[in-house]
């Protein structure tokens, strides 16, 4: 069993702008449907606001905005993935979240140098899984607070 857990990365698959992304399962606290979000004035535009997650005020990032994709109205499949990382609780709004897969670690490749997209910074690797291309995210880059230009 130990070998298995070492060799595989268990990840939650979510969809964003018709691409599939993988998020290590141990970071994910829960997956929520859309709830009422309170806007935070003065926060960067990709910070959607805060919501009440069972009594904990949790900030929410809109990943579409974070990656510079065009905005899309929320649908029934829109989900908020709640992540616990480095003492930070945060929610990421994604188009859909539907699967958990085991990704062999040796099949993870470094992000291609030239992809042409502006969000290459946030990618830590890619992998192919049953004919699907999964993009692994660099959570540090996404949360990076230096990008938070708080307007004073």
């Amino acid at each position: 069993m130990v070998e298995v857990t070492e060799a595989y990365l268990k990840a939650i698959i979510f969809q964003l702008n018709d691409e599939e992304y993988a998020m290590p399962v141990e970071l994910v606290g829960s997956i929520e449907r859309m709830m009422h979000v309170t806007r935070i004035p003065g926060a960067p535009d990709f910070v959607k606001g805060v919501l009440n997650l069972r009594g904990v005020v949790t900030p929410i990032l809109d990943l579409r905005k974070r990656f510079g994709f065009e905005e899309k109205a929320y649908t029934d499949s829109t989900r908020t993935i709640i992540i616990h990382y480095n003492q930070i609780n945060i929610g990421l709004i994604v188009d859909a979240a539907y699967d958990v897969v085991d990704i062999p670690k040796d099949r993870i490749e470094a992000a291609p140098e030239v992809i042409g997209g502006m969000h290459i910074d946030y990618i830590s690797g890619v992998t192919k899984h049953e004919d699907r291309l999964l993009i692994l995210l660099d959570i540090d880059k996404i949360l990076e607070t230096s990008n938070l230009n708080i307007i004073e």
Partner: protein
Amino acid sequence: MEMNEYLDVFIEESKEHIQALNDHLLKLESNLGDLGLVNEIFRSAHTLKGMSATMGFTDLADLTHKMENVLDAIRNDNISLTPIIIDIIFQAVDALESMVVDIINGGEGKKDVTELVAILQGVEQGEEVPTEQSVLEQPNRITTQSARLDEFELAVLNQSKENGFNNYQVNVQLQKTCLLKAARVYMVFEIFDQIGEVIKSMPTVTELEDENFEYDFTVILVTKDSPTEIEKKILKVSEVDHVLVEPFEVNYAGLEEEANIEHIETAQTLAVDIDASEEETKKKSFSSKTIRVNINRLDALMNLFEELVIDRGRLEQISSQLKNSDLQETVEHMTRISGDLQNIILNMRMVPIDQVFNRFPRMVRQLAKDLNKKINLEVVGAETELDRTVIDEIGDPLVHLIRNALDHGIETAEERSKSGKVEEGTLKLNAYHSGNSVFIEITDDGAGIDRQKVLQKAISNGIVKEEDADTFTDQQVFQLIMESGFSTADKISDISGRGVGLDVVRNKIEALGGTITIHSVAGEGSTFLIQLPLTLSIISVMLTEVQQEKYAIPLSSILETAIVHKKDIMRAHNQQVIDFRGKVVPLVSLKDIFQVPGELPNDEYFSVVIIKQGEKMAGLIVDTFIGQQEVVLKSLGNYLTDIFAISGATILGDGQVALIVDTNALIK
């Protein structure tokens, strides 16, 4: 490993019990006959024994056990209490204390107590204390020697009495020249067997046969013969020096063993006849029983409770719609219970202010040395409890105020003696509860605040106009020293800085929802009085609405609310202002500050919340007032820090998050 959690409690309680032992022993020493005190000591020792045994400190348990036996014998009158016994018990308590100290220092509480244990055991069995040579003790010694009887022996003795036999304790002393002690003993026992039955012999028969005794032995004899007859018969045996026959009282001598057997029972009966002082000690020990809980767990509990409150709100709404009396009753009951629950949860977050105070004595000592002043620090009310969040924040302001008092308040020894004061200045810290607030007083008996000096300084710094100076009350003058850019010390020192101190202190305290006031009498000293809310986690707010968004403004910073007509708004320096009760107050729109999306309604009237910070005021324009509410303050988390003019968030009854406005940031 689990035990570690209890170690603190164990140490606290042990210290308490040892203190109690010492106190009571001292009292007992001056009043040897007071059995109530013996009972107190016994109880402390008994509890200590139980605790240390549970914690696995065997040496501690052993020693207390022996102590307990001795005390038990004393209170059952089996041993009479002498100052020497008290000394021995004192020694035992000292040993206990050193063991507890060892445990505190991370040791295992081990100590070689065999000697003490042996002495105590000796005392318990009525042996003479090594230093004691009293002849008077002799008969006593015999009786107590004979006191070790088991249940069976006791039963026989009791029965013999009922059947008309007499119980005697016979002490036979052989001549020191006697050569065949065993033979003589045999002969004496022959006689005993003829006249009755030996119930017990001390030393035992085997020991006597082995000549394993000095020159005397004692037996308990059941017989119909009279003492004189027994004596005569035994004296017929040669080499017997003398014989002492005494009636043997079962009740009297049997008690010790009985007490040991019925030990638990005794403890139980004890619990029944509680006297007032015992009740007091009990209370004391109960109040110190604590468990340590990670603050995160308490936060989690609080969060869950908030969820409950939100659901409660919904339930209340539903029940009022359905108008079902059973449902309404249940919901009302639930409301009351959850109210109590809220109080308990909030109370759990309270910690004594001692956590902040305890670092001050050292600090004051060091500062006094640096400043070359003589200072005596008095701390009162260190046990006053405050919410954990307040405790974390209040330390720095207090340090500032203490430094200020030492530097500017209390004079040097020479100056003090010149003005006829004692050389040593006194700084007093006093904390206490009153109503829903906690007060912290910092009092010094120094020079006090010099009104003229403050005013001069304020005038030269441009804080106050010269012509206004005379109209200021003392109170207003004192508040001036907490304005920014103010320092009255002639000498700028490292200790209280360049006057950036006190205004920071005031801001901090106001940010905590508190106030600070100053009282001072020239030449006699000053008092800084800080008033703080009991808790920061629940605050009263005015809930307001701006477009679709709700903002909460802390009630503590609201002066009042007003409806202002459009035509009353004036402009000064490109800033909207209103004339509010004779004062020019700048107006700001929350919609502008928070960039709230939406159209500004073209109303004739504006709803304005007048906020204050110290002497400054501002008006906040909102769309509507929703009302006053108690809310739970929540942080925005580690991700969103430093959001301008937002101090936190709260969850409203409908489950939505509302932001709390940081009014201090809006008044500049």
